């Protein structure tokens, strides 16, 4: 089940009462909306054509591509143990095997996480040709985009936390 605690607060481990905690509390509305979007991207009420396991596994891949061990561990935990396919999708050495749909999804996740500047209309056409609906293309894009945002917010906060 999804943790209800704030993921960024947990991952960055900012001390309560510190000057940084005070600054973050000044933007409590933003941090709360960020956490609500996390739930909407990872565990929406209506997941459409992207399962919860796939979402957690893609988020884990994105964390690896961002060299973020703490988010990697977090999303690995979110995949859970019930479904072996999740851990396989999270492995960046795996590119989808013979599964046309999964291969197309993984290729797009890696592209948009790492090199969004290189994305073109042809990349969307590849997803459509693999049978991914337009609604699922938008869901996938929001997932990659949101996790990329969340990882950067945490990366910035860690640098603030470690200021001498």
């Amino acid at each position, binding site marked *: 089940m999804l943790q209800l605690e704030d993921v960024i607060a947990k991952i960055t481990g900012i001390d309560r009462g510190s*000057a*940084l905690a*005070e*600054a*973050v509390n*000044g*933007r409590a*509305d*933003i941090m709360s*909306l*960020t956490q*609500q*979007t996390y739930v*909407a*991207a990872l565990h*929406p*009420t*209506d997941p*459409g054509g992207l399962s919860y396991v796939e979402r957690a596994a893609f988020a884990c891949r994105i964390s690896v*591509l*961002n*060299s*973020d061990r703490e988010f990697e561990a977090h999303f690995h935990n979110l995949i859970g143990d019930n479904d072996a396919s999740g851990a396989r999708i999270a492995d960046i050495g795996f590119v989808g095997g013979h599964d046309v749909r999964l291969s197309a999804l993984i290729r797009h996740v890696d592209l*948009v*996480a*790492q*090199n*969004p*500047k290189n*994305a073109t*209309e042809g*990349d*969307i*056409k590849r997803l*459509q040709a693999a049978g991914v609906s*337009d*609604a699922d*293309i*938008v*869901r996938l*894009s*929001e997932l*990659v*985009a*949101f996790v*990329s*945002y*969340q*990882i*950067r*917010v945490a*990366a*910035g*906060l860690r*640098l*603030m936390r*470690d*200021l*001498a």
Partner: protein
Amino acid sequence: MKKTVHEFTTKIPEWKPYVAPLDLSQATPEQLEALKVTPSNTKVSDYVLVLAHDVETLQHRTPLFNGIMYNRGGLSRAEREIGAVAASIVNRCVYCAAVHASRYNQLTKSETVVDALFADGMDAQIEPRLKAIFNFAFKLSQCPSEANDKDMQALVDAGLSKEEILDLILSSSLFGWANRLMHTLGEPLSD
């Protein structure tokens, strides 16, 4: 015949989606609520109609976006736009760069900073405070992030408060999100 815009500009292009925008006549009550569509307000951009396919994330997007870019206190509006522009340059989102560079120009009534950033990126000759802001946001926008303790210290040395630095982290990260939608789900067009 309109053409795809590949070079950075402050002239705001049109945006043409690669996927079909939501057909309003097929929208669910949740989608109409998130889109704030009423009988007197039926104008919704193609971009938002595309995002409406994922209504659960869309419903948080507008308050989150407005909060990060326009909240009271903290970093100035113009300097938040520099965070947005830096991410948009890294991710080559010509549309987002145009919207936010032109907003910076309107707020500061000057075009020299944006011209320098579009031409030279991190080598741009701009005042030290803006340079520290742009360079931090540019490096945070890489995958993985390349921002380090020296870049953070440069923000402190340039006089930014913790509140201002937090707002910069948020605005540049937010555009890592926005660019990954705007640039990958459609393209900028101009005459």
